[in-house]
């Protein structure tokens, strides 16, 4: 039997808690639509760092294209940027870009994963899975922003478990 499509937990819908409903809807979207946001590099120290990080790999066509976009201040695919950084700059053994999506989905499919209390009504959502020791960051629009390893310390207060928000 095919796994059921994620959906907002009916108790959340019944609760009328707007903040929780919005969070649950973003989680459902981020799970069903693996879309990563884009990133625009402004002139600045982090942009200089990125250009310098990738410079030794400029002979690789994907990296060359990325560097061109950063230099022209065009939108950069956040997913590709993250993947190329792990593989070339940090020399990690990711097999394919999809490994990052797998990390993201592992985190969000862990029923014990928790949503951290957002700092404001516009802050991004942080989801932490202690099972996988991964921190997934998503926009309120339901776009994937980042996923990276985290020890789980000092993340902030737990707001909800994922199991209480989505099925």
């Amino acid at each position, binding site marked *: 039997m095919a796994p059921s499509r994620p959906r907002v937990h009916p108790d959340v819908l019944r609760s009328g808690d707007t903040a929780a409903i919005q969070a649950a809807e973003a989680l459902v979207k981020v799970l069903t639509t693996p879309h990563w946001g884009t*990133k625009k590099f*402004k*002139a*600045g*120290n*982090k942009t200089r*760092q990125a250009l310098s990080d990738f410079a030794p790999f400029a002979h690789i066509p994907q990296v060359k294209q990325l560097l061109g976009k950063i230099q022209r201040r065009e939108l950069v695919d956040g997913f590709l*940027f*993250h993947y190329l*950084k*792990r593989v070339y*700059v*940090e020399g990690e053994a990711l097999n394919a870009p999809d490994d990052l999506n797998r990390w993201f989905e592992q985190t969000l499919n862990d029923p014990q994963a928790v949503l*951290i209390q957002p*700092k404001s009504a516009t802050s*991004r959502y*942080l989801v932490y899975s202690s099972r996988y020791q991964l*921190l997934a*960051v998503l926009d309120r629009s339901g776009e994937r*922003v*980042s996923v*990276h*390893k*985290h*020890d789980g*310390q*000092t*993340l*902030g207060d737990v707001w909800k478990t994922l199991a209480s928000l989505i099925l």
Partner: protein
Amino acid sequence: MWYREAVMYGMDSWTVPGIREQRDDVMRSFLERQQQALLDRLDCRLVDAILDLDDDEVPDDLLQDDPTRPLAQWWWRLGQIRAGTYPAELLPPHLRALYRPAQRAAA
């Protein structure tokens, strides 16, 4: 190393909860020469990003200094570092080299 993940990947979106505590953990570890070189590189990235006054996405809580921590633990004084009011002589040389020009420019 958790600190490495935070600096290399969390900082891209300035999602760095617990980064100062992670730096504390590193301080308590024994590092081989190669690990120390990596740590120096990570520290430089963090300080360099903090010193960029045009970057308005640096989280406010990261810039809230903790006066209960020893002054030499610069990672608890990122607000002072950004403002150019941290005593440069307390920074290790590789960070001082980044900080002094920025401090002069901010003066």
